């Protein structure tokens, strides 16, 4: 009797241990490169330039790499500010447009609605590198080349198909009768959208916002081509410049500290909104 109980307990202990061991191993696999970057970023510049073993600083902790990075070009805060402005503006504009468009596609009937929707979605299939030249020419015509609003326009255009698709699904999941109830309660269209619909599609909005933020924060190619003035660089373009080095020497410590700097907002945003984000992606999956 007690023997069998002990065997069961042992088996359960083994299962739990194995479960956690595998989980731990996979987590380590994912955390390792981040940890490596973090550790290298705290080495003194001279040590960071040497072969990277052991990965942790042996000559003492130093914030020298961060100081070097901060002094780079016209100053790190200009670049971070540019990046933040571009990402935030992209998020705001994308969310507003996709909210309204998603609502329209979900609720109104108009001629060629489905064709229009498919047309918008199908632009995802066009590799954007292939239209970079025309985009550049259009922005030049508009006098927006080498400006942050210009790059924001391009990012918004790139994110809209996915975002509209997301928001349409989010609105589709809200029963029409809730809207009717709000109309009977006397809500105008805008009030109804703001007080009743927006809270209900918030998971969708969070998903759209995260995607728009991450993609525009990390985007490199369009920014590299469209932004020529060093003062307008976003972080990825600046990082490329840091990495290519000055006078043939590359400051690896500065590169790693840049990686840390760029990663921080992405991690923070994701951790902040992950609950919404997961609900947004699975919206409508279970009804």
């Amino acid at each position: 009797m007690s023997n069998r109980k002990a065997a069961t307990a042992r088996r359960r202990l083994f299962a739990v241990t194995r479960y956690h061991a595998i989980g731990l191993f996979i987590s380590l696999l994912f955390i390792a490169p981040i940890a490596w970057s973090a550790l290298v970023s705290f080495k003194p510049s001279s040590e960071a330039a040497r072969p990277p073993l052991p990965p942790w600083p042996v000559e003492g902790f130093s914030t020298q790499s961060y100081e070097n990075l901060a002094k780079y070009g016209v100053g790190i805060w200009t670049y971070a500010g540019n990046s933040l402005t571009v990402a935030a503006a992209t998020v705001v504009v994308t969310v507003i447009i996709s909210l309204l468009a998603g609502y329209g596609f979900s609720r109104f009937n108009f001629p060629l609605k489905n064709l229009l929707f498919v047309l918008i979605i199908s632009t995802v299939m066009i590799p954007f590198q292939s239209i970079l030249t025309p985009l550049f020419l259009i922005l030049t015509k508009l006098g927006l080349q080498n400006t942050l609003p210009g790059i924001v326009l391009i990012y918004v255009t790139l994110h809209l198909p996915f975002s509209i698709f997301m928001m349409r699904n989010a609105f589709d999941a809200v029963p029409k009768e809730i809207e009717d109830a709000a109309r009977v309660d006397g809500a105008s269209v805008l009030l109804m959208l703001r007080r009743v619909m927006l809270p209900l599609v918030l998971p969708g909005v969070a998903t759209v916002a995260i995607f728009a933020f991450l993609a525009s924060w990390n985007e490199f190619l369009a920014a590299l081509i469209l932004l020529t003035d060093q003062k307008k660089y976003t972080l990825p373009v600046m990082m490329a410049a840091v990495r290519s080095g000055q006078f043939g020497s590359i400051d690896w410590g500065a590169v790693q500290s840049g990686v840390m700097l760029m990663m921080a907002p992405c991690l923070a945003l994701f951790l902040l909104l992950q609950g919404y984000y997961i609900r947004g992606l699975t919206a409508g999956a279970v009804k």
Partner: protein
Amino acid sequence: MSAQHSQAPDKATIELKGVRKSFGSVDVIHDLDLKIAGGEFIVFVGPSGCGKSTLLRMIAGLEEVTDGDILIAGRDVTDLDPAKRGIAMVFQSYALYPHMSVRENLAFGLEIARTSAAEIKRQVEAAAEILKIGPLLDRRPGQLSGGQRQRVAIGRAIVRKPLVFLFDEPLSNLDAELRVSMRVEIARLHRELGNTMIYVTHDQTEAMTLADRIVVLRDGRIEQVGSPREVYENPANLFVAGFIGSPRMNIIDGICLAANRLSIAGTEIELDRPLPAAPQEAIKLGIRPEHWLITDKQADALPAQVEFAEYLGSTQYVHCRLANGELVTIEQRGGTDAKPGERLWLNCHQAALKIFSMSGEARRRVPAPIE
């Protein structure tokens, strides 16, 4: 505004004049006229897809009217917003705002109408009192049972102090037991508030028990308007006869032989009053299950064979096949169990026999001769 929201609302009449509705090229409501008296409880019944909800939503202002006029309390509201019509609506899916507490759900409409906070609090609590949802006020709809959600939805309608309540199948998502108690509750609400109410359902029991008058709809047309008793006892046509009443009225073919002689399923029957039909005319006869009598007297009776019987406790439904193969249902109270295959004789209450022309309209019968 103030008149509309006064404590004891005037009982509002409703008038539909030549109302039509089409979705694109599909006509859903055809040229419909209806007058509803103030304080009346009107029930729209009809099969699924006949346009009940559409008609109700047109009255609510949620659906545009293609043609015709809608008057509420004598005022033409055809082009008015739902909120300005003095109506409140209870939806089938409850349609509560999921992200708001019950209190916020009830207060939302008042808030939009810029009612003072103290007044909102008073009205919300008054409604909660009527519906006994006081303890639920701080919960979210997701934390409530179906019956509680429906109460909240009704509460949200009450706080608007509407002239007219509109219900669209409000009980169809509830289980059978809850449906009965909510039905009683809605009847009580009508007694207490006295408002004009329009109630859409496909459930006959709800229609019969709640209605002052029933409006039977089919394919966007009114088939009959009348009190539950009128609609049940004097259906205007075969559709109403078949639709109202459960189990359904038995409809069987007959031929009028002479003024008061009739042939049904090969048997000749002598009637106690003249038939409203010409000699040799084919007619349809309607007999409700409770109007059959099982007899052993063979004169003026139809031979039948039992197919199967359903025992329901207080009654028994006996399904029989007549000589010509038509299936009829008989409601029997008491008596012995009918066994499949058993042969029996059927007689009917002649006063309850309904006569329809082959095209379906009811023919009025002259009353029985006074003996």
